[in-house]
């Protein structure tokens, strides 16, 4: 049966070539969209590793772009700001940070390990960072006061980085990399479940925390203070807080933002391209569906003679319908095969690193399934039309 259908399709190859091409290109478009959707959906399901409700960020603008150099006055003023915020009754806890969640800026480092370059993001935070963002420590411990006296530099890493650096071994107590010649060596004291700074939609990354001591004259003053508010603090607190900060440091500027707001704007930024792409793809598919219906309709009208003859020889309406749909599915399969063959080249060539094989496979399957559904939908009306062809028409045509 299938062999026969292929033969029928082959006999009209010029005509079917264009349909195949159209299905091939539609598949490629759908595949790209599906890949984005699958990537984001998969990321969204992973745990975030921190809690953002009731957390605000205070960005300190010291009117100087670089933080490679700083003065003792800047350090003292930053400490004063920190203590001012800490003593406010509305504030539950406060910590300083190099960069905060849902912010695109950050500091990145890399480490050679077994000949492979492992990249990770760094966060310099004070001890209370874990309480402010409710990080989930899964092994070892978080930073504490005793670390001031330690003869090594304590670091806390996330699970992803643990896997990359230490595999299945227990990382607690191990030396982390070769960082800091002349300085104290870094040693892992704890592991957090995760810290996905770029939010729910971004992929899992490697993260490393180092401990910041605001009293150390050698350390640069932080540019962000993250605070956890007591429940029920009204939004008007923001302008009061700004006034208090401004009173401490007249020549600096502050930008206070609830993490909820940062999250929303980052989401928007990440989703707009996908939504635009999705809308365009949806319209493209409607267009293809309409076009295909039209083309099939036309082809059925053209083949009345052939269909009439089959009816005259005793073929049932269902068999005619199956023939039209069957031919269509053969064409679709052919287009899909070429498309999949093309698409499979990318991971083989290792072009897109951040998309896992599983997501890749899902997107191929989802796109192929959509194409099949689409073609069947397009074939329904024309094939129904074909069943209405009277045997007499075939005879009286010539």
């Amino acid at each position, binding site marked *: 049966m299938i062999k026969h259908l292929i033969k029928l399709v082959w*006999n009209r190859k010029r005509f079917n070539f264009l349909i195949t091409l159209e299905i091939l*290109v539609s598949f490629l478009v759908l595949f790209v969209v599906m890949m984005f959707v699958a990537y984001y959906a998969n990321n969204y399901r992973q745990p975030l590793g921190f809690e953002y409700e009731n957390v605000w960020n205070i960005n300190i603008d010291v009117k100087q772009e670089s933080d490679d150099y700083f003065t003792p006055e800047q350090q003292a003023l930053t400490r004063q700001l920190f203590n001012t915020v800490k003593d406010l009754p509305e504030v539950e806890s406060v910590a300083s940070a190099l960069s905060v969640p849902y912010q695109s800026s950050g500091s990145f480092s890399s480490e050679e390990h077994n000949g492979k370059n492992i990249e990770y993001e760094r966060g310099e935070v004070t001890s209370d960072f874990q309480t402010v963002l409710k990080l989930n420590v899964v092994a070892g411990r978080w930073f504490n006061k005793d670390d001031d006296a330690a003869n090594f530099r304590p670091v806390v890493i996330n699970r992803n980085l643990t896997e990359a650096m230490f595999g299945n071994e227990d990382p607690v107590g191990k030396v982390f990399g070769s960082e800091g010649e002349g300085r104290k060596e870094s040693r892992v004291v704890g592991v957090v479940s995760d810290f996905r700074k770029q939010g729910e939609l971004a992929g899992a990354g490697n993260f490393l925390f180092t401990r910041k001591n605001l009293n150390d004259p050698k350390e640069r003053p932080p540019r962000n203070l993250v605070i956890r508010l007591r429940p029920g603090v009204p939004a008007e607190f923001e302008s009061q807080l700004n006034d208090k900060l401004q009173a401490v440091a007249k020549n600096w500027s502050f930008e206070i933002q609830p993490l909820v707001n940062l999250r929303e704007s980052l989401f928007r930024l990440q989703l707009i391209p996908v939504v635009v792409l999705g809308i365009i793809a949806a319209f493209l598919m409607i267009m293809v569906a309409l076009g295909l219906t039209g083309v099939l309709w036309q082809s059925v009208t053209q083949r009345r003679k052939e269909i009439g003859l089959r009816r005259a020889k005793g073929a049932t309406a269902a068999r005619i319908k199956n023939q039209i749909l069957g031919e269509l599915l053969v064409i679709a399969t052919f287009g899909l095969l070429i498309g999949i063959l093309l698409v499979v080249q990318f991971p083989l060539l290792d072009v897109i690193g951040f998309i896992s094989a599983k997501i890749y496979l899902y997107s191929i399957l989802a796109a192929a399934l959509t194409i099949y559904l689409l073609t069947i939908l397009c074939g329904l009306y024309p094939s129904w039309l074909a069943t209405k062809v009277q045997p007499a028409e075939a005879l009286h045509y010539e």
Partner: protein
Amino acid sequence: MLKNYIKTAYKVFLRRKFFTFISLFAISFTLIVLMVATSLFDHVFGAMPPEKNLDRMLGVYRMSMSGGEGERRSTRSGLVGYGLLDRYCRDLPFVEKTSFFTAPNSIPAYHNGEKLKLFFKRTDGAFWQIMDFNFIEGAPFTEEDDKNRNFVAVINEATRKKFFGEASAVGKSIAVDGQNFRVVGVVGNVPVLRVLSFSDVWAPVSTAKSDGYKKEFVENFMGVFLARSKDDFPAIKEEFSARLTQVELPDKQFNRLEGQAETVLEGIGSLFISEGTGGGPSQFILAALIAALLFMLLPTINLININVSRIMERASEVGVRKAFGASSLTLVWQFVIENVLLSLVGGAIGFIGSYLVLQMIARSGFIPYADFHFNYRIFLYGFCMAVFFGLLSGVYPAWKMSRLHPVQALQGGTR
């Protein structure tokens, strides 16, 4: 003859309305997407107020300092610092006016306990002469204001509404970022897409909280040079690059300075195509064209497909015309014209559609103060696109039809 073709085309379009609908849907949808993209592009790069002199402007937007070797290598990059601009870029040749200003900073302002998010830009006096703002009331601040560190500001219409409602704002004072400014002028809202002039509040450079900016080489300033004409660009670029090599860097840590005088298109283009020290803008435009062609691929195939099957329906007409001696070329010509006509109708629908889509984008607030209106440029682009699309999707089916054998065609079609 053309009149005849148009008449025939009209009859054919009416005969199978479903097919005409599909074709028009495909054409107008394709053109809507392309036109929306083009007009967004035009709103960033086109010369229109306030940046009406954009095609005579060169600017310095990015600067990077680097030093050291291998492991110890360090780089600092960002926008330009005022120190560098002030010391080395004041008197470039062939330049009529020079202006230095900061990128718009997002700052919070609090009004009656409510938070207003404002963009804040510090500019010099020349900025107001190079740009052509639409002043609703008052006037811009001047070089004198900048020199004397007067706390004056120009605000846009939206900001006036937030602070003062519908009332006049000139002479009143606003508190922004912990400083008080006296409003001297109110301008119409500037779309965020105008990268050089956009802001909510503009104040003199000298009102900065500290004068640390005067020493910086890489910070958050931009410099713009208004050339006498476009032809002077190469000379200005060359002079700028030559001066850059003579700059004495303030920090021992750094020994190399990289940056160039460029147009906005070159500046933004090289953000997308990195390492493009050579043909930045042409590569950028090429990439955009390739993307547009790729996008047009599917609609084109779709339309060719529809056209090919429609043409079979008209086989008998072709047979008759051939039998009476019409050449293949005449037939190709006729069907291409028909297709271009259809594309133009689709183009007209596309115009209306893209106008609606742009209004929707403007109203959604994704692009603050977006103010889309069609100009003759967009109209011209759209018209060219429609004709191009018509040709692209019409030539193959027409050629295929013209090759029909008259006898076979008269019989009523082929396989």
